[in-house]
């Protein structure tokens, strides 16, 4: 589905940003990429829709080699929501903003209307439909950017730091939306610094540091490896910290599991 094979990339000749990336992502997976600032996460994402082409190795998406495919062709299948919504919003109204991609991809008129309507409802944006995207708050602008990509229904969805600036309710909405999309069979790739978000909701986790993938596996395994996390100046999930403080071995990120272990410890003390 998505395959990185020995990929190297640099913006300037003397400084490699991606160093020998090997990665396989299957259809319908939900995964997170975490890592410190400047690790190369965004650079890696830009390889998936062909904005950047590997200088060594290759990237294949849905069987297409990104070097031989145009960005527009890939973009039809790979939806990419950028880190900063201000980098893409330009239209007079929220509605027109959402139409932009649909028009680029030549959707028929009645379908454009239908899709805009659906996505406005889905992302709670109906009341802003005729407003300028620029007068909205940061979190709202982020949702407009998300809507403007989701509307054309790409089978792979890439979200670069979607949780920034979202209040708790919107974060829950986002989680619901992501899991709904994922259940429909979409592949969802999320880059984030929100480690609790990953621990609670994302089944697969990749850690990047200094241009390399240093861990890749089930979130439960990756995020409980406290040594690895601390070495790469990443925050431990709170549940792991509790586990460590209580000498629970192996540590866990599962809330119910941790509670039952703690209950057992308390019961043993009482006996």
């Amino acid at each position, binding site marked *: 589905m998505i395959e990185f094979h020995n990929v190297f990339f640099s913006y300037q000749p003397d400084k490699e940003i991606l160093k020998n990336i090997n990665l396989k992502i299957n259809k319908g997976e939900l995964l997170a990429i975490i890592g410190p600032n400047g690790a190369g996460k965004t650079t890696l994402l830009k390889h998936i829709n062909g904005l950047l082409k590997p200088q060594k190795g290759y990237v294949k998406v849905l069987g297409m080699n990104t070097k031989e495919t145009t*960005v527009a062709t890939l*973009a039809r299948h790979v939806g990419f929501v950028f880190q900063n919504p201000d*980098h893409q919003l330009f239209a007079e109204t929220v509605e027109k903003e959402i139409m932009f991609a649909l028009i680029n991809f030549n959707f028929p008129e009645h379908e454009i209307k239908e899709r805009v309507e659906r996505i406005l409802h889905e992302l709670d944006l109906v009341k802003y439909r005729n407003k300028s995207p*620029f007068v909205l708050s940061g979190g709202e602008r982020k949702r407009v950017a998300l809507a403007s990509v989701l509307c054309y229904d790409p089978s792979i969805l890439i979200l670069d730091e979607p949780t920034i600036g979202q209040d708790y309710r919107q974060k829950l909405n986002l989680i619901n939306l992501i899991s709904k999309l994922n259940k429909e069979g979409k592949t969802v790739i999320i880059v984030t610094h929100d480690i609790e978000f990953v621990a609670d909701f994302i089944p697969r986790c990749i850690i990047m540091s200094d241009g390399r993938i240093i861990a890749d596996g089930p979130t439960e395994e990756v995020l409980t490896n406290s040594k690895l996390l601390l070495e790469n100046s990443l925050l431990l999930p709170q549940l792991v910290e509790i586990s460590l403080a209580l000498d629970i071995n192996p540590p866990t990120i599962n809330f119910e599991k941790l509670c039952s272990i703690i209950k057992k410890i308390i019961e043993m003390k009482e006996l």
Partner: protein
Amino acid sequence: MKIFEFEYKCETSIIHKLDPRAKLVYVILFTVLTIYFTNPLILLLIFLSSVPMAILGKIVRKWLISIKSSLFFIIFIFLFNFIGIFWTTGKIIDTIIISIAMTIRFISLISIFSIFFLSTSPEDLMQSMIKLKIPYEYVLTFNMAIRFVPTLAREAQTIIDAQRSRGLEFEKGNIFQKVKKYIPILIPLIISSLRRAEVIADAMESRAFGASKTRSFLYTLTMSKKDFIFISICIITFTIFLFLRMFSYIQ
């Protein structure tokens, strides 16, 4: 798509070590020359005279990139001149010569200015402007404008990437459709620059910018022997070019 490269990088070449005021003399004299002359051969000579500067400054690679990335404008200027002059005069050979001259003139200007900015640190530039008794507010404005060119270039790149991800294709369409495709790039670029300017202004005021009339500086500049030698070379070359002009009149 790649954007201009004007970013200063800390290096230690002879050109980097020159006083910015000396380099400013170079820029002014040679800009005057490129504007003064219309003969394509002499303009080519002026351009070639900037090549050793790039080599001595060890900035050849970046210098080439900034010339290459202005290719779009270069072609535009050539075509614009060509059509315009041919329309009014109808003489094909004159038209070609003048269009070529205009194009070389533009390339020379790009070359001279990129050499200056690639080899001069923003701090040095600021100091020399203060020495030239320019009010601090203007110096700072100018300095920030330059300092944000790389930021702006990278931002433009990101915006292009974001719109391409939503299916915008620059390659397709006729010239009018192509021009229209720059709207989704320019609007976010302008808006986010304005947003940033606002934030920076607030941040500066909250750190007491403008609170007192006089300010102290961390370091100051002095002209040395090599700067005077450099200025002399510039003036001599300038004069030689002026003689060339007289010579061509005699001919």
